[in-house]
C-alpha cells in the first residue's frame, strides 16, 4: 500500500493547516455526508467496513456505536487521545500533523450517533498536541466545519479539548470518563457500560484517535474499499509503531496484517550493528513477548492472538541479543506499579510486589523461590480486577519468565545481574 491515508501529512506539506487540508479534499466528505446521508446509514457503513478499534481491544466500532440506547437524546463522544502504552506513538503523529482528519472524522461520527458535544481527552504531556488541536478546533469553527449549524444542515457539534495531567489509566475508557468528570481516574465497575451510562451519566462513545481517523476514509471511499485492505476480519490501514533495536524506528502505515518479520527487517531495516534479534513485544509493553523465532506472524488482531500475544496498541518493541530480559521486565514492572490507580487490591498490591521481586532479581537479594513467586503473583493478579491493568502487568511477567526462564535463574544464582556486574568490572578495569 503506497498511498498514505492516516499519515497523509507525510506526503502533503503543512496538512495541519485548514486551507491546506481543505484544498487536499478535506471536509468534503463531511459536507457531503451531512447534506446527503442519514445517521443510521453511516453506522451501517462503518459496521460494513469491519473497522475494529485501534486502541487495543479491537472491538468492532460500528457495533459499539449501535449499543447507544435509542431513547436518550443526550449523548457524548469522547476521543481517547491519552496515548500512553509504552512503545506506542502513533496517535501523536495524527494529533500534531493531521488534526483536521480527526476533527472531520469526529463530525462524521457525532452525526452518525446524533451527538452534539465531543471531548478530546489528550494526555497532559502532549502540550504541543493540545495547542495544535485547540488551534485546529478554532480554525474549523471559524470555517464552518464545526460548531453550530454546520454547513447549514442544522447539525451542531461542540468540541472541547481536555488535557490530562499524567496518568496512564486515563487510557482505559472508564478511567478516562472519570477523569473527564474531574475525579481520580478509577476505572468503573461494569456493567453499566459507557454506551449506556458514560460521562456525566449520559450514553457515551469512547473511540481511539486512529480508529476515528478511519471513519472519514471509509465514508469517502466506501466500506468496500476499506475491506480490500488487510485481512477480511480486521481490515483497513494500520499504524505500526516500531522502537528499540531497529535501523529505522518510527511509525509505519501499512495494511492490517503486515508480517512482523517483514515489518522489522524490510520496513525498519533490521537490527543495527549486525546484532541478532532476541525478542519482540508486538503490541505495547502489556502484551506477551515473542522470541526471535516466533516473529513469522501477521500483525492483525486474530493472527497475533492465535500466536499467543495481542495486537494491543501496536507498539512493537524490538530487542537485540544484548538485552537483559530481567532488566527489561523490571522496567515494565516499574511502569505498571507507577501507573496502577490503586483501586483494586490485586493490582495495587500485585504491581508493587512484582516490582519488588524484579528489583531483588536484578540488584541481588532475591530469594530462591522468587522466580516461581513472580509467576504465582502474576497468576493471582490476572482476570480479577475492574480493568485490565493488572493483566497488563501480569501478561509480560508470565511470558518473560516462561520464555527466558534461564536468564532469570541465572540472575538468581548470580545474586544479581551478571551482565551488569560484568560491565561494572570492565568499567573499573578502564579506570
Amino acid at each position, binding site marked *: 500500500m503506497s498511498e498514505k491515508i492516516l499519515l497523509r501529512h507525510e506526503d502533503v506539506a503543512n496538512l495541519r493547516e485548514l486551507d491546506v487540508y481543505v484544498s487536499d479534499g478535506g471536509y468534503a466528505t463531511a459536507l457531503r455526508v451531512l447534506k446527503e446521508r442519514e445517521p443510521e446509514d453511516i453506522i451501517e457503513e462503518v459496521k460494513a467496513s469491519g473497522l475494529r478499534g485501534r486502541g487495543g481491544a479491537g472491538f468492532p466500532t460500528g457495533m459499539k456505536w449501535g449499543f447507544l440506547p435509542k431513547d436518550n437524546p443526550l449523548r457524548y463522544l469522547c476521543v481517547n487521545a491519552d496515548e500512553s502504552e509504552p512503545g506506542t506513538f502513533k496517535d501523536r503523529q495524527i494529533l500534531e500533523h493531521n488534526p483536521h482528519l480527526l476533527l472531520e472524522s469526529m463530525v462524521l461520527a457525532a452525526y452518525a450517533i446524533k451527538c452534539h458535544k465531543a471531548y478530546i481527552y489528550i494526555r*497532559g504531556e502532549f502540550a504541543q498536541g493540545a495547542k495544535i488541536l485547540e488551534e485546529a478546533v478554532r480554525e474549523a469553527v471559524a470555517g464552518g466545519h464545526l460548531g453550530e449549524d454546520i454547513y447549514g444542515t442544522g447539525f451542531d457539534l461542540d468540541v472541547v479539548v481536555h488535557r490530562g495531567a*499524567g496518568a496512564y489509566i486515563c487510557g482505559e475508557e472508564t478511567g478516562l470518563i472519570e477523569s473527564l468528570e*474531574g475525579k481520580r481516574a478509577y476505572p468503573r465497575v461494569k456493567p453499566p457500560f459507557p454506551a449506556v451510562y458514560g460521562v456525566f451519566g449520559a450514553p457515551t462513545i469512547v473511540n481511539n484517535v486512529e480508529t476515528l481517523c478511519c471513519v472519514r476514509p471509509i465514508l469517502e471511499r466506501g466500506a468496500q474499499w476499506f475491506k480490500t485492505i488487510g485481512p477480511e476480519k480486521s481490515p483497513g490501514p494500520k499504524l505500526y509503531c516500531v522502537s528499540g533495536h531497529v535501523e529505522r524506528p518510527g511509525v509505519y502505515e501499512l495494511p492490517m496484517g503486515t508480517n512482523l518479520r517483514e515489518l522489522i527487517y524490510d520496513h525498519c531495516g533490521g537490527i543495527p550493528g549486525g546484532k541478532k534479534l532476541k525478542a519482540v513485544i508486538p503490541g505495547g509493553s502489556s502484551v506477551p513477548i515473542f522470541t526471535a523465532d516466533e516473529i513469522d506472524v501477521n500483525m492483525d488482531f486474530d493472527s497475533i492472538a492465535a500466536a499467543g500475544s495481542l495486537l494491543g496498541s501496536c507498539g512493537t518493541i524490538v530487542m537485540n541479543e544484548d538485552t537483559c530480559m530481567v532488566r527489561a521486565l523490571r522496567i515494565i514492572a516499574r511502569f505498571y506499579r507507577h501507573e496502577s490507580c490503586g483501586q483494586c487490591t490485586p493490582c495495587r498490591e500485585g504491581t508493587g510486589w512484582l516490582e519488588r521481586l524484579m528489583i531483588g532479581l536484578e540488584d541481588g537479594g532475591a530469594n530462591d523461590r522468587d522466580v516461581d513467586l513472580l509467576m504465582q503473583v502474576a497468576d493471582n493478579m490476572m482476570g480479577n480486577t475492574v480493568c485490565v491493568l493488572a493483566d497488563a502487568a501480569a501478561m509480560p511477567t508470565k511470558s518473560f519468565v516462561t520464555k527466558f526462564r534461564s536468564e532469570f535463574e541465572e540472575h538468581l544464582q548470580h545474586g544479581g545481574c551478571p551482565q551488569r556486574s560484568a560491565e561494572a568490572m570492565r568499567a573499573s578495569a578502564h579506570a
Partner: protein
Amino acid sequence: MAVEFSKESKAHFEEILTRYPKKRAAIMPTLWLAQKDFGYLSHEVLAYVAELIEESPAFVASVASFYTMYYKKPMGRHHVQVCTNLSCALVGSDNIVNCIKEKLGIGLGETTPDGKFSLDEVECLASCGTGPMMQIDDDYWEGLTTEKTLEILEKLAAG
C-alpha cells in the same frame, strides 16, 4: 496572603466552566490554570480551587495527587523529564539521565540550588521511535545524544 487568580485567569476560569455540564469537571483545567499562575499547587492554592469549584479541599487535593504533572512542591524554572521506559532504555536513556545529573549536579526529584532546573525520570512519553528523549516544560527533545543534551541544557541555562 490569600491566593487569588488574576483578572485574566478569572475570565479564563469562567470560560472553562462553560465547557462542562458539571462544575466538578472543571477541576483539571482549573488546576492547570492555577499551576500556570502560582507555579505549583500549594495547600493554599488547592483550597482556593476547591472554593471555586465548590468541592471539599480534600477532594480537590486527592484528585491533584493522582496526576503526576500537577506539582505539589515548588519546581525549578525548567522541568527536565527524561523518559526511561523500555524503548528509550534500549537506546541509552540511562546515559542521558547520568549526563544530566552530572551536568546539573542534582539527583532525580531534585532542583538545582539556583532554581533553574528540576530533574525527574518519567514513564513513556509516546516518543519511542525517536529515543532517547526528554521533555523540558512543554517541549519534546528527541533523538538525544549526550552532546545534544548538554547543548540544550546550556542554551536553557543561558536563556
